[in-house]
């Protein structure tokens, strides 16, 4: 298993290296002059040229790419050319918010998607099955920014039961920042009022982000269960007189869920990158809004760092998925030997 893990990790490195170089080139060939953005509204060409030299933006692209790669390997993302602060520091401020939202959405998607898929498959071609399939198509087709606004209008404006935006009620202040995960920090500070406020603020963004995930997981679980139901061991279990619930929950689901686990892993990465629209509508101060602000300001250092962080998260989650699959089905780890 250890060799398997090391092999998976080793395979991720070239992908990340490619990502660093590709995003660097892309960020520098798109229109927009970071030096002009940094110099500000009233800057003269001489001031812009001075900033360009100061940040090495006047050097050949290949030289800039090599310097960038060297800095990244050393864990140095440089300073945001817009705010003047270390990019790593800014990302560490934003990352927990995105992870908190993504974990919540993934949890919702898994807890709702797997039972839905299972129930739909167990009622193959029945009313519930049709409803779940309809919901799956809808969940994938609805644009998240539209859904976000609709949820705001219904639950915040009409019913007035959930907050519209942000992570916490401003009247409560902020807990001391220990982890950046607000749910955790509020509890560590012993502030139940803040914790409840943080939970309430999380609901609408998490539901918006989770909906396509619920649809994906339900679909894959459904097809996995349907396939497993055709297997001989299920026929045997039925013949042996196992009850429907026991059969589904214990025997069928475990065998059917391998593909779903892969999807959950891929979904995690997709949710992080898909959080951009949701974060923007709900003013969720995560990596998504940070990336949008970096794009608007031509802050290429920030943009490169965000892309790399998302890439690393993807890579790590992929390795974890591989491991989970190997644990569920040990044949997978052995197959590559």
């Amino acid at each position, binding site marked *: 298993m250890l060799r398997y893990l090391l092999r998976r990790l080793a395979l991720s490195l070239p992908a990340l290296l490619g990502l660093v170089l590709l995003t660097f080139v892309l960020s520098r060939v798109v*229109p927009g002059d970071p030096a*002009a953005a940094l110099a500000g509204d*009233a800057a*003269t060409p001489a001031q812009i040229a001075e900033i360009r030299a100061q940040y090495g933006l006047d050097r050949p692209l290949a030289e800039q790419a090599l310097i960038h790669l060297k800095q990244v390997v050393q864990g140095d993302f440089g300073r945001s050319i817009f705010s003047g602060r270390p990019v790593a520091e800014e990302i560490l401020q934003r990352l927990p918010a995105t992870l908190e939202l993504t974990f919540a959405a993934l949890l919702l998607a898994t807890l709702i998607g797997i039972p839905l898929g299972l129930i739909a498959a167990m009622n193959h071609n029945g009313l519930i099955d049709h409803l779940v399939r309809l919901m799956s198509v809808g969940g994938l087709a609805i644009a998240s920014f539209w859904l976000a606004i609709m949820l705001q209008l219904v639950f915040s404006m009409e019913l007035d039961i959930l907050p519209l935006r942000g992570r916490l009620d401003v009247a409560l202040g902020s807990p001391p920042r220990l982890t950046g995960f607000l749910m955790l920090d509020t509890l560590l500070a012993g502030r139940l009022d803040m914790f409840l406020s943080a939970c309430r603020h999380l609901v609408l963004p998490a539901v918006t982000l989770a909906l396509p995930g619920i649809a994906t997981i339900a679909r894959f679980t459904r097809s996995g269960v349907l396939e497993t139901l055709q297997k001989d061991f299920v026929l045997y279990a039925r013949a042996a007189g196992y009850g429907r619930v026991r059969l589904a929950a214990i025997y069928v689901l475990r065998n059917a869920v391998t593909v779903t686990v892969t999807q959950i892993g891929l979904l995690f990465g997709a949710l992080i990158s898909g959080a951009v629209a949701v974060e923007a*509508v709900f003013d969720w101060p995560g990596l998504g809004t940070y990336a949008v602000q970096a794009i608007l300001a031509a802050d290429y250092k920030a943009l490169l760092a965000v892309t790399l962080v998302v890439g690393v998260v993807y890579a790590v989650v992929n390795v974890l998925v591989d491991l989970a699959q190997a644990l569920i089905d040990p044949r997978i780890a052995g197959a590559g030997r």
Partner: protein
Amino acid sequence: MRQLLRSALLALAPSLALVGAAGAQQRPLVWGDTLPATLDPHAVFDVPSQFVLLNAYDGLYRYQGNPPKLVPWLAESHTASPDGLTWEFTLREGAKFHDGSAITAEDVVWSFRRLLAMNRAPAAAFTPVLKAEGVTATGPRTVRFTLSKPYAPFLSAIPLVAVVNPRLVTPNIKEGDWGNAWLAANDAGSGAYRIDPATYQARVSLDMDRFPGHFLGWGHVPKPIEQVRARPVMETSTRVLALLRGEIDATDSYLPTDQVERVEKNPKTRVAKDESMRVFMIRMNNKKPPFDSKDARLCFAHAFNYQGFNEVILKGLVVRNGGPNPNNLWGNPTDLKPYAYDLKLAKEHCDKARAAGAPLGREVEIHVQTELDQTVQAAQMYQADLKKVGVNLKIVPNTWAGITGATGQAQTTPDMWVHWVSTYFVDPENWIGQMYDSQFHGTWKASAWYGNPRVDDLLRAARTSLDQAERQKLYAEATAIVVADSPDIWVYNTLNLRGLARRVQGYQFSPVGSGGEIRLMWLEN
């Protein structure tokens, strides 16, 4: 397990009491406008940075009211030598920084030297005429500026510069950065509000508390606002909903015109409408054909439906502005006649330009700022009208940074682009001076690449004259020539639209800072 649960509940018990207590305190003012990327007042100068400048810092002079009036601030008075080269400011007594230390002439000198050494945007108004050694303290309360040449807008630009506390910044200087990285997220000011660096998140949240020791005191408001929470809202729809729901007390000052009625109908909100000094314009790159032809430019000037855009799309919430300077600023000719929408006349000019060889058959690109709806709407309307005179306009989505980054050279500057010119300082130099004097070519403001030696002479003479009547005459003549040459399309002067909660009282608009000076406000319960 039961023991664990009991311990957890006991630990959380004090916070349960706070749930009720929070409601008893006055809710802080929640400001929903954009925050700057950095809190360093010498590093950037744009519209959002004015919020920090006005609330956390003080300058020697400040603009107040509308029309904006320059009033003494940290300085109690100033004198200027007859040749306009020496300016001396006397500081008022008793002004203190947030750490309690007194503001001295040396602090002012250090702040200006820092500004000039960092040489970022706020320095642009000073670097052509002022060197670091030209700023000196001639006494504990007097600061002297010696300019290399006369510069009439010098006093108008003084409010751009915040006085920072060198005792806080100096220990945090790293690698010769003048403390820029530290000040980007910290406070070294004397303003009416103190920044809380512990809770600051760049472009996400800024918490400020009232500074009781502010030199102007607090007797001017019945009950000062104690806490300010700046929480920018990215999406327009969320911003409006958040105001209607009471989650924020103020939107930005670009409230979409189609939302005005909605905000006004809500019993808890209102819209503050103030004539500003922010000119909306469509630029033409005068160095690129067909815009090097005056007839082509006149064709474009007559093909824009000013009334349709101002009255229908923007619901009459703006004022037609026919020249580069805002209508409500001095320096405009009294008989300035704006261009009118006249497709027949436009076609005649286009035909003339074509006959003279102007390539009006080529696709003309207009760059819009995608995140600002009005720039897109203007381009879409223009596209339809230009088609009627045989011009094919292509709309190119872009960003502010993307466009301004391309205006450094004529060949990379877009054919056309849409933007506003806001008030950085109140002087025609801020508009016509920096937009149409060819010495500014390469800056975004001068991105029309207009060149007229007579206009250059007039603008340079106006810049160096200290005689206000003469300056008025020079700017009026320059404006008349520029408008006749039609280098750009000037559309309207902005009516500043800011959604406000009705509990916000004392809001006072000024074109500099767009009404973001919290010191003047109070909250009704």
